[in-house]
């Protein structure tokens, strides 16, 4: 990391530079995170002071907004969180399993037409979902899947997220071929190689896929908005939207409390998997 070994400027200048830089960074961080901190603080404040109190430290940790907000809609947030968790977990499983199977075929198996299909798969990366949204809606409507979780889940079990396939192909190509060649000589079937060799060696990329699948699904708004109608099927983002529409300006404390709970899982994920997430962005950003 030590790149610029300075020789010219004196210790004082160096110190001033460091202080200035840290001052700037701390200031910028505070400015950026202030809205989030303020929202978290406001979720503990009584409704009467939310709009006038700029402090990021609440006068007291009063959980009234949380308990009231949790039951403010016709269904309690227990239902919405259950729905969100259910969808997110199934999407994670679907993506990890189906994308790794597909990626294994592209990265390791020899068969006619592989190159062509690979290019086609890359092509689907560029496809904005708006183009497929309406025909997919018509398809799910005819299948009777509207107002169920199936439209959000089933495509993920059919490797619909080409981005993760691509990420995994890149990773699989980095695993030494000698390993599976030795396994072939030992009489291992491709399925066993996939399961016993590739999967255990690919934990980093599988984890990255799982994390990003979870975060994207958890935050997804358009999908649930289009496919889910009944309030008992709402995911957390839909519930927040309808909370905002129904209470308008009157219950911002409760709305903030539920918003804090909505982003809390993502925040926790980030705390635990920070390195993987940031590497994922640096890498996938490069290769997307």
């Amino acid at each position: 990391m030590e790149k610029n070994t300075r020789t010219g400027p004196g210790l004082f200048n160096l110190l001033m530079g460091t202080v200035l830089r840290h001052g700037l960074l701390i200031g910028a961080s505070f400015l950026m995170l202030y809205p989030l901190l303020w929202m978290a603080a406001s979720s503990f404040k009584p409704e009467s002071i939310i709009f006038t109190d700029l402090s990021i430290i609440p006068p007291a940790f009063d959980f009234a907004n949380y308990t009231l907000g949790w039951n403010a809609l016709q269904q309690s947030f227990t239902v919405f969180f259950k729905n969100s968790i259910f969808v997110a977990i199934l999407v994670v499983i679907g993506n990890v399993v189906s994308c790794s199977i597909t990626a294994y075929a592209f990265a390791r198996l020899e068969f006619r037409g592989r190159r062509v299909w690979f290019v086609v798969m890359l092509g689907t990366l560029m496809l904005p979902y708006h183009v497929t949204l309406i025909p997919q809606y018509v398809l799910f409507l005819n299948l009777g899947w509207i107002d169920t979780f199936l439209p959000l889940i089933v495509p993920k079990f059919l490797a619909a997220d080409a981005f993760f396939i691509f990420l995994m192909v890149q990773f699989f190509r980095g695993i030494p071929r000698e390993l599976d060649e030795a396994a072939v000589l030992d009489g291992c079937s491709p399925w066993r190689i996939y399961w016993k060799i590739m999967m255990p060696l690919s934990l980093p990329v599988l984890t990255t896929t799982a994390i990003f699948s979870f975060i994207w699904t958890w935050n997804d708004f358009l999908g649930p908005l289009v496919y889910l109608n009944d309030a008992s099927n709402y995911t957390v983002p839909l519930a927040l939207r309808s909370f905002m529409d129904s209470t308008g300006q009157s219950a911002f404390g409760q709305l903030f409390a539920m918003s804090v709970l909505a982003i809390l899982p993502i925040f926790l994920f980030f705390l635990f998997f920070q390195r993987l997430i940031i590497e994922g962005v640096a890498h996938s950003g490069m290769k997307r």
Partner: protein
Amino acid sequence: MSTVAEKNSSERQSRSNAATRRDLIGYAFLTPWLIGFFCFSLGPVLVSLYLSFTKFDLLSPAVWVGTDNYARMFLDDPRFYQSLKVTFTYMTFEVPLKLAFALAVAMVLDKAIRGGAFYRALFYIPSLLGGSVAIAVLWRQLFEGNGTVNQILLWAFGYKGESWISNPETAIYTLVLLAVWQFGSPMIIFLAGLRQVPQDLYEAASMDGAGAFRKFYKITLPMLAPVIFFNMVLQIIEGFKAFTPAYVVSGGTGGPIDSTLFYTLYLYQEAFSYFRMGYASALAWILLIIIGCFTGISFLTSKYWVYYEDDPR
């Protein structure tokens, strides 16, 4: 002689058997993806193209109307132009500002300083949360008439502001700000790029007496050009897809007076509020063509930024 020929042909036979077996195995593994591809990508794209030439409201069968949808779009739909204008205005401000912030902060963090990873994580948090409804809800409150931004302006400058959200002049800029706030992910890509710039270039420049500005202009910018370009294309594509913030902040209307009517929001309204599925499909195809152009450019230039393959990190 004959035995050799026989052996050859049986070898060829077994080789072609092996090839068939390999094909079978390969396609067995590929089956889930192939089903997904035909059902959720290729099929829908073709159906979408067909629907874009029809009038279709989900209840009655689609009726072929030729190019009527496209004609209406280009000749007789002010909201189509408004949504293009909103989207391009948004991107004209959002993309350069976001990239400038991302690059500036990345350059500060690239210097070996204590806590670099900590700051990097802090700056990335908004990118992680920014697309969620929760943050859009917060944003709406921040820029309301009696919202936090105006409270701060009042407290700091004694300035009494109006709602930034209900003013058609300013509403879009609150969304620009929300996007710029999420400069974390291009910043991380810039950081990876900055690590690739050979340090001896800077050392040589220092010996020649080049100042910080000159070094930035003559070394950092050219060396980083492919990454900047790549980030830009990525952000433009993302910009076209922006939906959630505009929907939540405007309550799904794109208002006030269509000033936040993003292209995707207009498409959504046409399809799922008015059930004009044919017209919405035509809108989707125009979007596909626009995004296709930008992606094409990025692919044609991809050879300039793939040198990250060898990143030993």
